[in-house]
């Protein structure tokens, strides 16, 4: 039997919003320690890795490890039926083929429950090696979203260059070119509002802008985004979900065009 109670259903709503455009369906692996999700998008270019710790839930019970194949579009539909402050409970029997999602208002006056069919998904699990990244950039998630959105008007790919001075996002296209440069500013009171760069080695990589834009859908989950980069390995875009866990996006770099 699996049961998880979350005081703010809005959190899960935001999580689903953050992954539903990359993934159509995904397997949620439930264990004692929490809920994990790992899946690649259809094009196998990016990978979403999500972890929700059991301690982040109001109540969490998982007698047996359980993998639930979920159609995210259907789940989003169900999540639209609740308001952000509703208390939410997810339930499934061992070996069940359905998942029950219950919402209750905080004053307990309204209760609703939804049952969703589960799917049998055949997904391969990738092992992500521990990497010491050459550059780790922390910046406000809204700022990152803004940059990606702005640059996507100019070109399809974004070059992210990280040097001692700061980080430079640049692109070029039919209209012309665009460059956004951020320098470190740790003078601001709140840590998440500043831009910090930890750098061992300068890195310059190219990524598909559309994917970055999709990653930015997770911005409502966290005020800060952490970008980790090393030469010729996937970029990691990480959003910490308050108390609950994290969501990480991996995006393979574009191959340098020789022409």
């Amino acid at each position: 039997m699996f049961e998880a109670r979350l005081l703010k259903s809005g959190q899960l709503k935001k999580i689903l919003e953050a992954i539903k455009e990359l993934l159509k369906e995904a397997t949620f692996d439930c264990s004692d320690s929490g809920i994990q999700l790992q899946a690649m998008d259809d094009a196998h270019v990016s990978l979403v890795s999500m972890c929700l710790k059991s301690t982040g839930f109001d109540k969490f019970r998982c007698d047996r490890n359980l993998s639930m194949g979920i159609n995210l579009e259907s789940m989003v539909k169900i999540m639209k039926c609740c308001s952000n402050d509703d208390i939410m409970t997810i339930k499934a029997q061992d070996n069940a083929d359905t998942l029950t999602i219950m919402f209750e208002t905080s004053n307990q006056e309204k209760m609703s429950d939804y049952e969703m069919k589960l799917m049998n998904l055949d997904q391969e699990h990738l092992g992500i090696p521990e990497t010491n990244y050459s550059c780790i950039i922390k910046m406000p998630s809204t700022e990152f979203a803004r940059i990606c959105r702005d640059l996507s008007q100019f070109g399809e790919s974004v070059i992210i260059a990280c040097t001692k001075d700061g980080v430079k996002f640049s692109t070029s296209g039919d209209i012309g070119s665009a460059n956004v440069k951020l320098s470190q500013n740790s003078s601001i009171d709140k840590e998440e509002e500043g831009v910090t760069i930890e750098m061992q080695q300068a890195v310059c990589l190219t990524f598909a802008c559309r994917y970055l834009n999709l990653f930015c859908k997770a911005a409502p989950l966290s005020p800060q985004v952490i970008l980790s980069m090393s030469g010729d390995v996937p970029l990691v875009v990480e959003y910490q979900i308050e108390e609950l866990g994290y969501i990480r996006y991996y995006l393979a770099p574009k191959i340098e065009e020789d022409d």
Partner: protein
Amino acid sequence: MAPRGRKPKIKNEQENTELFEKNRFIILPDALTKDENADRQLIKLRHPQTNELAIFVYSENDKTLAQMRSLPFSHRSFFKGNDVIPIDRIDFVTLVDPIFLFLPYFVKCSSMFCPLDQILVDESLPELNNLLMKLSELTNLKQIATKKEVGDLILWQYNENKTLEWLTPKIEKVSKVLITQQINVNQNAAISSSFKVCETSLQATDEQYKRYAYNIISEYLHIDIQKSLLKHLGLPEIVECNKRKADENKSDVNKKVKHKEVEYDEMPFQVIKNVTPKLTAKDKALKKAASGTKSISSFFKKNV
């Protein structure tokens, strides 16, 4: 199942307007054209496969029974002397062994030995009974039934083994003809007679010929007998795509529609549901954006 004669002959039919509309073009086998004074008459009998009434040509003196298969053939004409004669319908007349027509009746009464006049009984159309009895004199019923004489009573019972033994050589004969006539038995064959397709693609196996012959013969067989025959021949049961059907009852439908129906028949029975998610414009754009990027799985090892 006699070979079709090639001599076309036009018959002016006045009698039986119900059966006949004007401007029919009838193709008769040679056997039926020799004797001008034959007492040919058109009769309706149940088709052994469909159990619907079909038109047959019966000659009592000649002791022949032939089936008429008609094909709507509108907007055609031919010259006869200086006249243009329109054709609305083409009829092929082929000799048929009456025993095929008896099979359904025999199968119906297969549970016990019965006198013949109790077997060849059409409950809904009793007027056929006499005719059937007359026709039974033309055939050798021993080919499909076991005979038993009790006193002066002669009893018959349907015998499936005998029937299959009787049908098997027929199929072999037909398949031999198919081979010698080089008839294309390829599935879904639509072959132009004016172009020669390269030989190799037309190489059909014995089994294919046998199956094609089986299909021709089974037009006159009830579905149950078809199945046992298929087993008897040792042919694996497959979903037939181009099985020809005796559907004379639909003969008023014009040719175009008819052709369409055949196309539907050619569809496989079960369409495998292919769950391909719909590609929205967004998905397509994402796919485009992904081009030029390495696959993520080339960086991360698969967990087994």
